[in-house]
């Protein structure tokens, strides 16, 4: 059985997920920076839809004109969809940033990132283990 470590689905998915998480960290930082800006609306990225995309087993098929072209890609898009979060109460200044919600999202994102980096690390350890003939370095 041929194992291709460097075109690993798990690595691709974890990498894309980490990319999304760092984008989300930007959004949360933006919400927190504008916590006192009149009229600012809380924003978020389409996060769960993203996981749905990653989990779908139906890859995107690209039109190819030559046999060497990449035909199938896993549907990981680098751009998340941005939207204003509905249903939040806004104060008199029409700003609806909720500090507790944002702090929760902040640690949630950091935790997810840490988790993903452990998974990627584990993957590379597997490679290192086979290089070292099974000895744990």
């Amino acid at each position, binding site marked *: 059985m041929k194992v291709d470590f460097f075109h690993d689905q798990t690595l691709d998915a974890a990498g894309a997920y*980490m*990319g999304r*998480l*760092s*984008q989300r*960290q*930007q*959004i*949360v*930082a*933006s919400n*927190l*920076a*504008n*916590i*006192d*800006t*009149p009229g*600012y609306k809380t*924003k978020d*990225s389409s996060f769960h839809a993203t996981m749905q995309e990653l989990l779908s087993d139906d890859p995107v098929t690209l039109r190819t004109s030559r046999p060497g072209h990449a035909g199938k890609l896993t549907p990981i898009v680098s*751009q*998340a969809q*941005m939207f204003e979060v509905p249903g939040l109460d806004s104060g008199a200044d029409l700003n609806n940033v909720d*500090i507790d919600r*944002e*702090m929760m999202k*902040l*640690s949630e*994102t*950091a935790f997810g*990132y*840490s988790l993903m*980096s452990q998974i*990627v*690390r584990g993957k*590379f350890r597997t490679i290192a283990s086979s290089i070292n003939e099974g000895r744990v370095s």
Partner: protein
Amino acid sequence: MSLMTAIEVGASGLTAQRRRFEVLMGNLVNANTTQPAGTEPYRRKDVLFTATPPEATFGAAFDDAVQGVEISGVVTDRSEPRKVHDPGHEHADREGYVLYPNINAMTEMVNVMSATRSYEANLQAVNLAKEMQQKTLEILR
């Protein structure tokens, strides 16, 4: 690198809240400042926050929705000064009234607390983004 943008945005929040803190402190210390009769007394000041795109030092933000914050101006509260009857005061006018600034120490303290809380929230955002970068570096350790 997008985590750098997160730090940049957080830092803009820290700067804005610190400047706001300075302005609020200026109000607090001048709560009882009087001026000679006939001159304008000190008036309460506040800052105006405006959302602004972050500086793209390490590559652009991934979406226009990512916005830092800046102070677009310091505004003066035009409400009426407090009139206190104190004929013996150096700055009293002919009827014996002294004009004190339109500053309520309680209001200022609440604003100071709000600025502190927001500062802490932004600090936390910066710290977590730093931690995430550290995790990336630890992958190959």
